[in-house]
């Protein structure tokens, strides 16, 4: 599996994500935000950071970057797409995932090792985990409160789209939601950082199973 790591100006988790994909056994390369095609890649990784400074609204500027239409196309082609932190914000901004990420309830940035639960292990991303397995991934965000209306929430539940929840909600997210997939199950967005949880020396290696699952399974194409 060869992944494109999208690089926007202001991305800062790009290197970590590239390293994570490679460490798990996959291939990965950077793709500039000005590119218009993702042909030749089997999947897409959208990193954390502050794309274009996020001075307007997180993900707003990145959403109109040239690479967006290529990301949409990859999604249509059923390629796996993972957006982490700012990547999740961008995926909701461009409508590949429902809902939105708004300011944390406490209106301050929150950075800590977070205890989370894999509430859906039946996705192409989370099959390596047990159902309801607790994991530690770091979080680091100012706009991580997952918001959606009642109707959207009911759909998320009905379609089993909620994948990851907080055990101790750090930002006020609706029903502790930390990560969701789209209805086709190939686009996954989450606020926490599994790419920073690959070694016990650094506090947790709970993210490894995610990247192994994403890089070592072949044949996801339609």
């Amino acid at each position, binding site marked *: 599996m060869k992944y494109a790591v999208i690089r926007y*100006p*202001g991305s*800062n*988790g790009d*290197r*970590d994500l590239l*390293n*994570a994909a490679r460490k798990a056994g996959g291939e990965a390369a950077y793709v500039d935000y000005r590119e218009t095609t993702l042909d030749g890649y089997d999947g897409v990784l959208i990193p*954390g*950071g*502050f794309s*274009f*400074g*996020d*001075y307007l609204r997180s993900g707003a500027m990145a959403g109109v970057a040239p690479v967006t239409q290529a990301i949409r196309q990859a999604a249509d082609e059923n390629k796996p797409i993972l957006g982490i932190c700012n990547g999740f914000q961008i995926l909701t901004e461009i409508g590949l995932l429902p809902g939105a990420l708004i300011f944390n309830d406490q209106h*301050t*940035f*929150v*950075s*800590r090792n977070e205890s989370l639960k894999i509430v859906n292990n039946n996705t192409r991303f989370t099959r390596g985990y047990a159902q309801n397995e607790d994991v530690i991934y*770091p979080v*680091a965000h*100012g706009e991580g409160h997952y918001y959606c209306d009642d109707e959207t929430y009911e759909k998320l539940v009905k379609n089993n789209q909620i994948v990851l929840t907080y055990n101790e909600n750090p930002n006020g997210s609706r029903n502790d939601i930390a990560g969701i997939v789209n209805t086709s199950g190939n686009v996954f967005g989450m606020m926490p*950082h599994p*790419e*920073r949880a*690959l070694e*016990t*020396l*650094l*506090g947790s290696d709970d993210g490894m199973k995610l990247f192994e699952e994403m890089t070592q399974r072949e044949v996801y194409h339609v």
Partner: protein
Amino acid sequence: MSKFIEPSMEHIRNEKLYAEMGLTDDEYGRVVEILERDPNYTETGIFSVMWSEHCSYKHSKPFLKQFPSEGAHVLMGPGEGAGAVDIGDGQAAVFKVESHNHPSAVEPYQGAATGVGGIIRDIVSIGARPIGLLNSLRFGELSGANNRRLLRGVTAGIGGYGNSIGIPTVSGEVEFDPSYDGNPLVNAMCVGVMEHDKIQKGTARGAGNKVIYAGLKTGRDGIHGATFASEELNEASESRRPSVQIGDPFTGKKLMDATLAAIDQPELVGIQDMGAAGLTSSSSEMAAKGESGMTLYLDRVPLREDGISPYEMMLSETQERMLLVVEEGSEQKFLDLFEDHGLDAAVIGEVTGSDRLCLYYEEDLYADIPVQPLSEEAPVYILEGQQPAPDDKIYEYSRADLNQVFDALSGHPTHGSKDYIYEQFDAQVGANTVQKPGFGSGIVRVEGTDKAVAAALDGKSRYVYADPYNGGKEVVAQTFRSIISTGAKPLGMTDCLNYGSPENPEIYHQLSESTRGMAEACTALSAPVVSGNVSLYNENRTDSILPSPVIGMVGLIEDVNFMDGLTINSKDAVYLVGATTKSFAGSQIEKLLDNETSRQLRYIDLETEYSRGMYLRGKLTAREIKKIAPLGRGGIAMKLAQLASFHHLGLDVEIDLDGEDLFAENASRYIVIAQPGMDIQDAVEIGRLSDDGFTIKARDVTIERTLAAVTEAWEGAIPKCMTSVD
């Protein structure tokens, strides 16, 4: 004829306009001597910022010269944007600490944010990729609404910049003391890593080589910021708000990436950050170091708005800018590189064979100044210090209610958890952070290796006030203890000297004696000074701040994997290393019970400090002991409370000391955690860790709490102060 309406030379002289810019009559006279004529408005501005304390160190230079700056590991000492030490395999650690105190006092968010941005650019301009940020913060007590506002703003500002640019904040230390009421200290440190052979210097050589400006367009923000940083804060300081720069971490990130790419180009001659005194200091310092002249055509500087005069351009402290000198003919390559990163860049001048800095705007000459005197001949003031009489106070804390002392101290923000602050900083971006802020130094692995860099910032101002000479030693020793506690070998240090007005003889005495002590400690502890910064004129509304030298130290852990799985548990034993003496001058119990700091001798033996530290370091890396926790503020009692709370482990210890000694703060002591029955030099096994309960028994007092109570006090120390709506 000037296109800008500016005061004439006569007007500047007769109305003493130079005084408003911070030049004294004598200094103005010296400028006239150097120029052999009166300076015009632009030139007066340039001299005033270059000769400000912030840029010229005119009151502190003699003290800085005492610091040892050479050593086996030093690759580059003071004088550049940052210093560099060898970390093996052809790699260097580059680091520096810098203050942003005055700006943070009037505009806490931007003051702190730009402090972080500025220190990052210093590291990047050497060619190093930043791997960690640290900060040392001082505020007045949080019972004051303004101090809570400052804490909120400074914390958000540090995070706002550091989180966005994507460099982990890996360590810090914070103290709350009435001395900093309204005059907070915000010291930021950055550590970067690079290859030895790519170390860049800020130099301008080779007549005909081109000067390139890159980064944010220049605006009118931060004009005279360096001068502002060199005067006392007062009622009128609020009007200095426009002197505070505005941070733009997005541009800072792009500039960092572009600069690191530019440094790989062989045609690059030199590069310097436009920090304090912006274009003025970068251009004149680069020319001075290269023993060249420089001509700038200021109408080519990218500007945010029309009508900005040469005077304003030269004094603007707009952030996120770099000045490069590149070989003639290679300009376009660099302009393209910056454009690709979405940044403004322009060729604004050239290096000349003369010895003059000449500034043109269109056809008109706005400044013509000999480079060397401007940058090297700033006045140096050697004043008379005055030693205040020592206090003959006798301490009898054994009569105090020591249980109450324990509760008051452990619930105080200085001793409590700093999670309120540190949870606002991204500590793990980069996926190499081995130890985050919270308990001890920061540890960051060097990517692609098993090595790690340990970095700590520390300051103990009450000790320095009590005994400037020995207190100065202790500040260095305290930071040394933090470094060895990670298993690292100290390589070098950086200092930030935060003091009151040097024109006050007692402050001058503090400055001279404490730096003398620090210099001795640097030598004794094998930590030469490779970079530093001075911040004087820190005055609160009624008095000077406590003398607050802050030391940043960097050490090397050769194989950080020794830490993997090295965790403490409830079966481990607690050891006290080093003898405890009744040392209370400058202690936290003295602050609490007497509300003062007495001037009394403190004592430290640097030889013991060094040998004990290096011995314990060896024990830790050999995994014979599991944790080293150096003793500091609040002594044994506070360290045990913090240790238990941080690790969620109880403890039960019995110490053969008087109760008051639990709060004594003499030097060279540690709490060590290891298996029971270990043979550790100068150590006494005082008890065990446990699953619950918290008991410290001394000869005449027992402090007994539930673990939940101790933890709650620790965790709530800051949040309980921050609940009120200000």
